[in-house]
């Protein structure tokens, strides 16, 4: 799953714009990633201007 580092995230919305399945929501104060919709394409991680997103492999 994709994890947001809230200490780094600048709430700029670039990840929202490029997410192909629209699983990221930028509210008035935080960034929410819906892991049930996320397809793990990692495009948001690559595109984040501040490298605030990372992927964490969860045990299945």
């Amino acid at each position, binding site marked *: 799953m994709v994890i947001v580092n809230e200490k780094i995230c*600048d709430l*700029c*919305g*670039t990840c*929202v*714009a*490029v*997410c*192909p399945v*629209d699983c990221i*929501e*930028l*509210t*008035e104060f935080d960034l929410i990633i819906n892991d049930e919709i996320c397809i793990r394409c990692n*495009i948001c*991680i*690559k*595109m*984040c*201007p*501040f*490298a605030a997103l990372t992927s964490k492999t969860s045990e299945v």
Partner: protein
Amino acid sequence: MKKHYNIAIVGGGPAGTTAARFATSQGASVVVLERDREIGVPVRCAEGISKEGLTKYVDINPNWIAGTITDFGFISPSGKMVVFHSPTIGYILHRRLFDHALAEIAADMGAEIYTKAYVHGLRRDGSKTTLYLRHIGTETEVEADIVIAADGIESRIAHLAGFNTKLSPKDVEPCAQMQLANIDVNPNRGDFYLSNNWAPGGYVWAFPKGENTANVGLGISGKYAGNKSALEYLKDFVAEKFPKASILTTTAGGVPVAKALDKLVGDGLMVIGDAAHQVNPLTGGGISTAMAAGKMAGSVAASAVKDKDISAKRLSEYQKQWDKTIGKDIKRLYRLKEWAINLTDTDYEDIARSLDGLTPEQVTLVKIFKQAVKKKPSLVIDVLKVFAGF
């Protein structure tokens, strides 16, 4: 906040507040819903605009002009600078003050503006649209005849309304910017640093905001994003070129460098500004294009409300105006951008060398691009058409 407005605009940037101004001036009731706590903040922008692109839409107030630009410097990877004397004046804005001013003009005409108003849902129902929002923590709803999505690059409202606003990574530039103080800059020259080591598939800008301070930022092509973030590229650049600088702001942003959306309207719905990818894809400039779209969409929306016809067909008047003016230019600029993101450092050096020895007055943008497109002559027509006004 009332229950119903003729026009609800999501997003209080230059696109949204310009649409609000032109819609209220024609008698429509208008609400602007801004997600952030303050109009114009944070500034995710290099703040540059041409005099022409500004004065077409608003009277200049010296309070929000931070600097006046008469020259541009292009710096090659080895540090060779080509100075170009601009035939038109450019300005570096204080975007916070500028955005406030645009909002105040709209408000003076009667538009209602709310901040910390986050729209998270939308339902189209016959002849009206309901927006679901959280306003300073309280859930509420607003009904409108027409919704204008001006919510920036993430474009979530347009997406919720069924528009395909998704951007492919190669059509987005992840950007980082710092406002630097205590640096040596020419207050009347905007500089562009061109090297794939500094900013692959993009460029670094240094836009002065008066003496000794400048917006220094960069965008990289999404095509090359992944190994190193825009912020890391910027930190390296600043350490190399401005090691003694104090850093007054650090912001991230994404700039759409795409073709504008094919479909800008639906029944009771319009999309404008960054949300509609209405940005010059070669330079990333989008303030003027946003105000242009805001003016067109706001005017068309108000007259559609007056005539009680909010159908996509009626609202497409905005799209027609857009397509035959700026929309056409953006298609050409997109072709140039697709080519420019593949330029190598050797290409940049060749161009700089070929212009060596010319005075700033002798260097023209057409000359620069003529040198640049030697390797791809088919682009000459695009270049000439883009710069036909110069």
